[in-house]
């Protein structure tokens, strides 16, 4: 069965790399369970699935990943997004709060994690995020940065 990572990497079942990926069923299953835990969690902690997918689309763009951008665009369209969420997904920064604060954080942690400081978490608190939301947002950011790297590495393997 083709999963989200195969799709992102462009792998089909007749390829050697598709089979090589299955040498690690723990990674295949684990990556998919992680994806569900940050994009479609049973308890979303008040960060709705359409906000999560819109942020994922934004981070795919920051990682220059057109395949994942297109995938998240399709998913977002099915989740009844508001104008604000569509703008957020497209990389807009002029948004209402707390979205404006959230996207500043998402952009910073995606592009320059090294520069993260205590004050950045304080800004999220000031925008009204509680501790479960701060952790859930951090896991979502970190997951998309994991996903784009695995997909990118597999694509490089396919073309060598």
């Amino acid at each position, binding site marked *: 069965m083709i999963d989200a990572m195969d799709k992102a990497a462009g792998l089909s079942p007749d390829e050697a790399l598709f089979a090589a990926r299955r040498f*690690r069923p723990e990674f295949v299953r684990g990556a998919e369970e992680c994806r569900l835990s940050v994009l479609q969690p049973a308890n979303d902690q008040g960060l709705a699935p359409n906000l999560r997918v819109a942020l994922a689309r934004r981070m795919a763009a920051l990682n220059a990943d057109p395949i994942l951008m297109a995938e998240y665009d399709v998913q977002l369209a099915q989740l009844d997004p508001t104008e604000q969420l569509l703008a957020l997904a497209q990389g807009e920064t002029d948004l209402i709060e707390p979205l404006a604060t959230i996207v500043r954080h998402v952009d910073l942690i995606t592009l320059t994690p090294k*520069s993260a400081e205590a004050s950045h978490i304080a800004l999220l608190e000031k925008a009204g995020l509680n501790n479960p939301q701060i952790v859930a947002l951090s*896991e979502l950011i970190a997951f998309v940065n994991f996903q784009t790297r695995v997909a990118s590495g597999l694509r490089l393997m396919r073309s060598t």
Partner: protein
Amino acid sequence: MISSVRLKPLNWHPYIAPVELSEATPEQLEAMKVTPSAKKVSEYVRTLAHDPESYLARTVLFNAIMYVEGGLARPDRELGALGASLVNGCKFCAVVHARRHAELTKSDEVVTALYLDKPEALGPRDAAIYSFARRLSAAPSEATTDDIAALRSVGMDDCEIIDLIHAISIFGWANRLMHVLGHAESG
């Protein structure tokens, strides 16, 4: 001859209040039974337990990537983790995985070369792994097909390269938690 760099373990402290065990929900307590590297329930674990679903899913995947049997040698996974942690600026993770690399190889030569920023002192296999780790960790990734060719030229097969991609990428994740949600202190 470069004198060895001695790295002491750091302590990590969160910027937000971690979950108190006495106030944890059954789901949080259940999730905290699984810990990174099967270590104790640390402040880091209790911080992430605020969102038990993502904590549990990621920790299971993390432990598989770093410890699953066969495939890429353990020190090579640690070197991938170290390269990512240096790029992402996570001092805590860098020290932990530098020390594990030194323990597993019974040598601190590689770690010393990296902490003194002398990657040219690495052997060809370590150099190929470290360079790929750095380039894949950039945002956006700067890795190219030349990096994959370099890994193949030092004898790595597809399964080992897949293991390495995961070791580097899971630190693109772990570093964005540890260095973002708290800070490292010595002693």
